[in-house]
């Protein structure tokens, strides 16, 4: 197998990635790439971002071992990287603070963002408030309903939330609408894309901003257990929290990488969002990657109880890691995820986001493929407060309404 997997700088990851966008956006992508590369090489930028993470985001995030949860699956040790404890409640803030600093550097006064579960929208609205930027968040109408609390949070933070009523009215269509806004307002506006999909430089840049998760976790695990974990697990929709924790371990060949996709009603039903397990390569939202499409190349609607994983595409670096065999991807159904959400809540007193619960449900599968006594590091990418409406209905906790 190829070594030095960490050094990929885009625009391509093998045959994946690229810039499949309309010409009017190319100048903005060039400007963003140049700004990012200059910032990356500038110690004052790195210092400013590190200070923000320390004093605002609340980094480094801690590691919590989950022994009572682990016991349910057999002989293994499970360690949770607590991105749920970050300001705004998920990993999304890591990327948002980085890109907001870049927007400032480019002199852009307005940011736009897409959001599925609302976590990226909340993080973007937070950064906009902090830096004094105008903020518009596009959100599929379906998602504004199932994530109503996050809509309220974004509005309270001063952002404008625009429900998207075209197409499947979910994350995919929110991205389309953000791209349409961007092309019309590119001089004043930065598109603060929230995942590792999209045209170059987004997949590499967003990955770099999230790789702090894995960098911290690698040191923390060495300090805590004296060795690297046997496996790392993360949920995967677009793939930002997964790549963030995977990336610093890519060249550690003995560390297995597991991404858990949303299998909706079941991986063998038509209603799922398991892009890597069941899709095929194509072009969506500016990059070549695995995607869910019909035989005519029309994007298919994805299905998941989790708004944040309900996306028919995935970041190109994951497609590359899948084809290389470096990372494994596995589908988790709605029912399995919800059971894992309840189990972690009851055993450890930690309520995870439904997205994150897909990674936790993956422990059942890992118990069958890893040796006894294995150490597993799970990216606890977000907290479940936003999901109480969905969980309340699912588990019948809300009484008569």
């Amino acid at each position, binding site marked *: 197998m190829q070594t030095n997997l960490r050094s990929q700088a885009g625009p391509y990851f093998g045959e994946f990635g690229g810039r499949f966008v309309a010409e*009017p956006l190319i100048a903005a992508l060039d400007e963003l790439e140049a700004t990012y590369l200059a910032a990356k090489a500038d110690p004052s930028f790195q210092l400013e971002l590190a200070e923000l993470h320390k004093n605002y985001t609340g980094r480094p995030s801690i590691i919590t071992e989950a022994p009572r949860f682990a016991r349910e699956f057999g002989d293994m040790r499970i360690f949770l990287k607590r991105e749920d404890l970050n300001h705004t409640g998920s990993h999304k803030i890591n990327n948002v603070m980085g890109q907001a600093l870049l927007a400032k550097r480019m002199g852009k006064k307005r940011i736009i963002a897409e959001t599925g579960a609302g976590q990226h929208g909340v993080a973007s609205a937070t950064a906009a408030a902090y830096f004094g930027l105008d903020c518009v968040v596009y959100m599929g109408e379906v998602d504004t309903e199932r994530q109503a609390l996050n809509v309220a949070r974004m509005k309270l933070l001063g952002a404008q939330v625009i429900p998207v009523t075209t197409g499947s009215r979910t994350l995919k269509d929110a991205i*389309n609408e953000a791209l349409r806004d961007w092309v019309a307002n590119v001089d004043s506006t930065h598109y603060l894309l929230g995942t590792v999909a999209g045209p170059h430089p987004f997949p590499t840049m967003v990955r770099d901003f999230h790789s702090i998760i894995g960098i911290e976790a690698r040191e923390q695990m060495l300090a805590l257990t004296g060795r690297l974990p046997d496996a790392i697990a993360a949920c995967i929709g677009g793939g930002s929290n997964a790549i963030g924790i995977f990336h610093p371990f890519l060249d550690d060949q003995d560390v297995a990488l597991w991404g858990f996709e949303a299998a909706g009603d079941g991986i063998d039903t038509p209603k799922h969002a398991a892009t890597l397990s069941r899709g095929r390569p194509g072009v969506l939202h500016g990059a070549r990657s695995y995607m869910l499409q019909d035989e*005519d190349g029309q994007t298919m609607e994805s299905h998941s109880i989790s708004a944040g994983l309900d996306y028919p595409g995935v970041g190109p670096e994951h497609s590359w890691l899948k084809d290389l065999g470096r990372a494994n991807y596995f589908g988790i159904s709605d029912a399995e995820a919800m059971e894992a959400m309840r189990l972690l809540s009851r055993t450890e007193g930690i309520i995870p986001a439904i997205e994150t619960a897909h990674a936790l449900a993956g422990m059942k599968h890992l118990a069958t493929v890893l040796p006894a006594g294995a150490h597993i590091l799970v990216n606890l990418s977000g907290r479940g407060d936003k999901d109480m409406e969905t969980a309340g209905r699912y588990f019948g906790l809300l009484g008569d309404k």
Partner: protein
Amino acid sequence: MSITNEVLERNRESGRGTLVGYFPAGYPSKQDSIDSLVAMAENGCDILEIGVPYSDPVMDGLVIQHATEDAIANGFRLRDLFDIIKGVREKVDTPLLVMSYWNPVLSYGVERFSEDLAAAGAQGMITPDLIPDEAKDWIAQSDKHGLDRVFLVAPSSSDARVENNSQSSKGFVYSVSTMGITGERTELDRLARSVVSRVKSLGTTPTCVGVGISTADQVREVNSYADGAIVGTAFVKAYQQGGLEALVAKTKELAGGLG
């Protein structure tokens, strides 16, 4: 030289100017789209543009989004495109370009798509989300099959990109008039003149201007500095409001803006 170029050159030399008309394939049905495109050709469109309905049309405004969504809902399949091209070709010899987002072409296979386009009698393809940098396969296949390939240039494009995209194009290069998606604009951007003059100063590739053109005055104005005006939304909207009759009237009205 392709017949697209011949039409553009003839219309430029005669002082008439050129009207390029867009209509979605399969909207609202296969036969309706054939009849519409034929009517547009017979009533003043010099070049036809057949849009391929696609699930994620990020360069299109609501009018075209809704029309192409309807086409898909009404059962449009990619293979129907070639029947529609043949159906138009049986009636008129107007140059005919397909406009498609890239994934349907990629999914069909670039080589097979190019073969089938040529065999059906189309002159080539406009690719709104494919830049020449990513188009190695399409450039090779369009050369092999003698097809026009129309890339975009935009007000935001650097001079180097204007040059590269113009030189990579065959037939004409598509000048995006304004920074935005398809739809009607009351005033055409001064940016349109500027991007066209940059194309003209760099070489001999003809250029047509699109995005936002909806009136006879705008068609006339654009033809005073460019090789043609591309109209889409205004035709689709006319059809939505009054069917084939309204589409014919709109075509005559806009062609009336020509010299």
